[in-house]
């Protein structure tokens, strides 16, 4: 019996939350000394339960007063009858408190997400997409999210824009995950985007770059494929578009670009992993980037990130003739892989695509180069085949960490060599 009494008393106390429903805050304009005295008198009326936020002191200085709902009428009549002008600063105190609470809860959730987002594990498409919003929310004024199109299965194609202002500044394009099974690339993309946002204003190189250039970063370049690697086939590479007249699905998005399209470094069979597609830019995932870059008109560098093989390459893939900027591109690649190796000793090879890996036609990098983007590079991240596409998540952060100086080398060079 006693226990029930105690419980109900506690319960009652817990429910006895003070509420400010209908309370208003009035700003009172004091005109003379007499009005000061009148307000001081008001203060003495305890039954009104008035709460002066700003005490009445002297003429010309406003006084702020919170009035509980039951006392509102009385107070207003008092002020009006004495010719004391006032205005309603807050119409309903409780409403304001409720909104404030909502904002606090929201930011707490976001706080939870940024501090609990695990950069050392692989995430689903939804998790990455939700994290994009977190990054934007945490770095307003630096990062924004734009949609450049839709995938075959109508998923949004999101690009993060890193910009400190200006109008159509020279830009760097980065993409990861164009081949969905290369999971370390999307994971590296997330880490790198975060690093870019965090280091602006702290790292002199990144600050110099972002103070004069914009960065556009597409982390999940092939969302349909990525979703498929989670739901059905971990080793899916291509898009998920339906091919007319074939039971085989998908086009290789890195053979679908209009640079040497249809050449021997791609396949005409829809069932092939390097199927070029029915025509150049047939894939919306590719076309969206083409339209974006051409529409932008001021993209100076493009870095497309793949895995695996540990290579850093530049054009051409579709022909063996050296690119006009071969020497400069080669030297920069050498510097970048040396700085990458300096972190953990990871060895990369480098050179043109055709020399380093194999002939490949219709690649992102060749298209970019032939469309005015001089500094076009493609990375093949870890490893060299021991785990291949199935790289253990424990290697995500080391991979991202070592790749960072290489990316920085390229971006700095671009920034220092405007054209």
């Amino acid at each position: 019996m006693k226990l029930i009494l105690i419980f109900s008393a506690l319960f009652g106390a817990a429910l006895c939350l003070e509420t400010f429903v209908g309370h208003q805050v009035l700003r009172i304009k004091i005109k003379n000394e007499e009005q000061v005295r009148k307000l001081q008198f008001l203060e003495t009326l305890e039954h009104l339960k008035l709460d002066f936020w700003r005490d009445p002191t002297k003429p010309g200085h406003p006084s702020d007063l919170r009035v509980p709902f039951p006392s509102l009428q009385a107070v207003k009549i008092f002020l009006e009858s004495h010719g004391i002008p006032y205005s309603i600063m807050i119409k309903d105190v409780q409403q304001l408190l409720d909104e404030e609470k909502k904002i606090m809860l929201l930011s707490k959730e976001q706080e939870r997400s940024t501090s609990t987002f695990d950069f050392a594990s692989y995430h689903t498409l939804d998790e990455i997409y939700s994290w994009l919003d977190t990054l934007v929310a945490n770095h307003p004024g630096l990062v924004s999210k734009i949609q450049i199109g839709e995938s075959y299965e109508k998923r949004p194609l999101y690009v993060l824009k890193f910009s400190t202002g200006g109008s159509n500044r020279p830009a760097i394009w980065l993409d990861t995950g164009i081949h969905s099974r290369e999971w370390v690339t999307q994971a590296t993309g997330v880490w790198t985007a975060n690093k870019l946002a965090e280091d602006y204003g702290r790292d002199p190189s990144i600050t110099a770059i972002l103070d004069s250039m914009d960065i556009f970063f597409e982390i999940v370049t092939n969302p349909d494929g990525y979703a498929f690697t989670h739901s059905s086939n971990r080793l899916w590479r291509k898009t998920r578009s339906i091919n007319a007249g074939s039971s085989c699905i998908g086009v290789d998005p890195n053979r679908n670009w209009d640079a040497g399209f249809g050449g021997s470094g791609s396949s005409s069979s829809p069932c092939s992993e390097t199927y070029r597609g029915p025509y150049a830019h047939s894939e919306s995932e590719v076309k969206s980037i083409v339209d974006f870059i051409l529409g932008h008109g001021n993209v100076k560098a493009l870095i497309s990130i793949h895995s695996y093989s540990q290579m850093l390459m530049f054009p051409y893939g579709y022909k063996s003739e050296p690119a006009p900027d071969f020497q400069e591109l080669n030297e920069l690649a050498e510097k970048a892989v040396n700085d990458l190796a300096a972190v953990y000793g990871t060895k990369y090879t480098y050179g043109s695509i055709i020399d380093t890996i194999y002939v490949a036609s219709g690649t992102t990098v060749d298209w970019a180069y032939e469309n005015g983007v001089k500094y076009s590079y493609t990375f093949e991240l870890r490893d060299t085949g021991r785990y291949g596409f199935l790289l253990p998540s424990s290697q995500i952060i080391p991979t991202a960490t070592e790749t960072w100086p290489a990316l920085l080398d390229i971006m700095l060079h671009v920034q220092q060599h405007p054209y």
Partner: protein
Amino acid sequence: IFEKDSTVNCTAEVLYHLGNKNAAPDVQFTIEGELKNTDEADNLFYNRIKSLKNELVAENIPDSYGNVPPEMEPIRALAWAASGYVIWKNSNENTKYQLAQIKHVKQVKRSDEYLEFDYMILLHENVSQEIIPWQMTVLWHPQHGIEVTQNSRQPKHV
């Protein structure tokens, strides 16, 4: 060569038959130094499998996240060695194979002292980018070594 804390250099001379495209390349190799002695680990694994009540069955090694449970490491090492044989037999100067994943492995009961495993593996061919399912039957004994008694390319799952 594949060992966590030690690196051994190996030089090999690989001759591709330009005339007969279906012949496996000629390989002459030299190992500098000595390979680590694995007798203890081999016997431990051998006895563990021999004493299993039911035949070992496993799939997706590594899993999607690159994880390999510690007790599956020897199964993986065996597959790695056996796939080396399969890869060698099917290589030419336009191919670059890697073992991508063990899709499925099933132990086959034997009355003799050998261990037998029926593997379904996925090979990744780096030039065509194809993922090729391959079946291989592997015989192993700690003292007698490894043998791939059967292997065949499987149709690709559409």
